[in-house]
């Protein structure tokens, strides 16, 4: 097939669909995310061979099979480390990581924070279903306190991670949240994530209809979404509710609070600014909900410019070349004192 290089892509969604049989449970939220990603791929790369999907292990991590691009289905939790190596060795490639709440936040938590801290040029999609799907339903680091599963028959005791707050704490330069069920929102967030240079972290609420059905209904479901979705939009006052009657403002106590707009006055609401250097306000917004059962912000929390790891590496290498001259392997191997041995 003719694939045009530069000057606009001729690829369509169809070309990013692989011939593999998709092996997720019928009704799983992963299908919608797959379709959204395939649909926006022509906007991301103009050649399929320049695109790499790297995953760990989990239902979500089966993703690379279904993308007609390069892919690595690696080991549990390690995708961010593998992606760091790949993206740094080949800065010309577009590298996306697919991970789950278990893969990325339990066994792979360490790798995830360090990829974000380094600002490696990656897009990381964390499919959060608040459960271990593949191993048949144990609680995960995003499950709510008291979660009863077969490994926590008396209810879990652990306070869950807030993935957005975690990413902000790890200094991620692009942090967003979206939903499997909202194709339009998800696509726009994914496009922004793709356009960002450095690490883009996107948490996607994903329904696991087998082991944790309805976990996001209060935020994602038709019935409650208007009252519980706080849509973050750049340069706009943060408002939500059926009639946009609620808003968010700074409370006097170094925190943010939900207020009635009419009483508080629109001019007192926070005007969302994704480019704010200081992540403190984004962090406060991330904490306005303790879980997806109450008004919860979705959208882009942060999008700032920082040096990208691979570019910094390239800069160091060129400085070294300038100082030391272009190296020669032969010179290296015969450097220092040498002896002729009879």
């Amino acid at each position, binding site marked *: 097939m003719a694939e045009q290089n530069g000057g606009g892509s001729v690829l369509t969604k169809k070309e990013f669909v692989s011939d593999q049989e998709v092996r997720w449970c019928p009704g799983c939220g992963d299908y919608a995310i797959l379709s959204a990603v395939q649909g926006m791929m022509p906007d991301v790369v103009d050649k399929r061979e320049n695109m790499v999907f790297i995953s760990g292990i989990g239902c979500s991590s089966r993703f690379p099979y279904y993308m007609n691009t390069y892919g690595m289905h690696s080991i549990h939790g390690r995708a961010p480390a593998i992606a760091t190596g790949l993206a740094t060795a080949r800065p010309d490639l577009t590298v996306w990581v697919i991970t789950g709440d278990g893969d990325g936040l339990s066994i792979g*938590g360490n790798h995830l924070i360090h990829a974000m801290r380094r600002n490696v040029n990656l897009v990381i999609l964390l499919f959060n279903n608040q459960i271990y799907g593949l191993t048949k339903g144990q609680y995960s680091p995003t499950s709510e306190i008291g979660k009863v599963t077969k*490994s926590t028959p008396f209810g879990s005791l652990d306070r869950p991670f807030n993935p957005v707050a975690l990413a902000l704490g790890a200094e991620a330069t692009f942090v967003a949240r979206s939903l499997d069920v909202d194709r339009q929102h998800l696509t726009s967030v994914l496009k922004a994530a793709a356009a960002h240079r450095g690490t883009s972290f996107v948490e996607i609420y994903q329904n696991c209809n087998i082991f944790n059905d309805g976990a996001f209904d209060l935020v994602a479901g038709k019935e409650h979404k208007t009252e519980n979705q706080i849509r973050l939009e750049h340069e706009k006052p943060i408002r939500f509710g059926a009639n946009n009657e609620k808003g968010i403002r700074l409370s006097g106590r170094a925190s943010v609070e939900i207020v009635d707009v009419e009483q508080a006055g629109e001019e007192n609401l926070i005007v969302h600014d994704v480019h704010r250097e200081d992540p403190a306000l984004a962090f406060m917004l991330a904490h306005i909900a303790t879980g997806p059962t109450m008004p919860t912000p979705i959208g882009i929390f942060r999008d700032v410019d920082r040096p990208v790891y691979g570019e910094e590496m390239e800069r160091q290498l060129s400085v070294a070349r300038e100082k030391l001259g272009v190296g020669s392997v032969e010179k290296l191997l015969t450097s220092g004192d040498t002896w002729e041995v009879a």
Partner: protein
Amino acid sequence: MTARLLEGSEAIAEAMIGAGCRFFAGYPMTPFTEVLEHMARLLPGVDGVCMNAESELEAIGMAWGAAATGTPAATGSTGQGLSLMQESLAEITLARLPLVVLNMARAQGDYFQATRGGGHGDYRHIVLAPIDVPEAVELVSLAFDLTFRWRNPVLVFGDYYLAHTAQSVDFRPPARADHDLGWALDGRSGGSGQAKLVSPLGGFKRKDQSGYNLATHYASCAAATAEMVAGVTPLADVGFIDHAEVVVVAFGTPGRYVRAAVRALRADGVPVGYVRPVTLFPFPSEAVARACEGARRVAVYENNQGQMIDDVRLAVLGRSPVDFIGGLSLDSSGFGIAPDLDVQVLRARIEEVFTK
């Protein structure tokens, strides 16, 4: 006998609790997951703690911490998870701590990992490989005895079949020896006025005995390992070896199928015998050598590409040729269900050895 029908994972969980285990940590992985889930359900009822860790690295770390207090502790996983545990396992051995570790493996490719260890340094583990659920119950109990007797981790090597087969089990109350826990971090100083240290780098805080001297500490660990290796009785299950021309060696679940194939061949008058190492380390070399003494050929069946065969060859020491009749056999899930584990298949392979 009060028999109960139990699936292996549940029987193993109950056996651990019966043997005194009061701390368990693990991370889900097929086919190990159900052991963790049963421990999570059962341990609180006996004042024990079960933790669903965030990975195998943490699971063994948690178990290490519990073990240091003298609490009978265990952890486990499946081969991949055991790979992650190797650093800790090696260091726990050098810290001279008791710990029972389960590998509900996928097939038998982890024989080397279990018997040689994938960690660093000069250490060994006792390895027990049950053939079925009732034997697993016995060996789990033995594992706790051995781990406290030698203050050295003990591995129990099972598989998908063991974890997921239901069999009738007779639980006898285990006769537990009182273990000396003088070394444990129990919150008391034992009247010596000296703080205790449990560490892979030495057992003393001050320069009173070995102090911080790795040469002395590692030498004492090596001596303890040598004493353990000499002191543990290797176990083997031997059958049909009278006038056997061919002796077949297998361990774990495949042992059941090999034993059935050998029995069927014997019924047809074929002179074939069978030996099954129960302790994979220390390997029952003498028992294997004795069983194979009169044999013209020795055959080894393993569900891997040939690992235990090295130990069989070392036991037989060239007295008879050793043929490999195994090979990796998996269904598409990769969890260790083996199409080759079929008495007809095994019969045919054994019969072929007779033609050599």
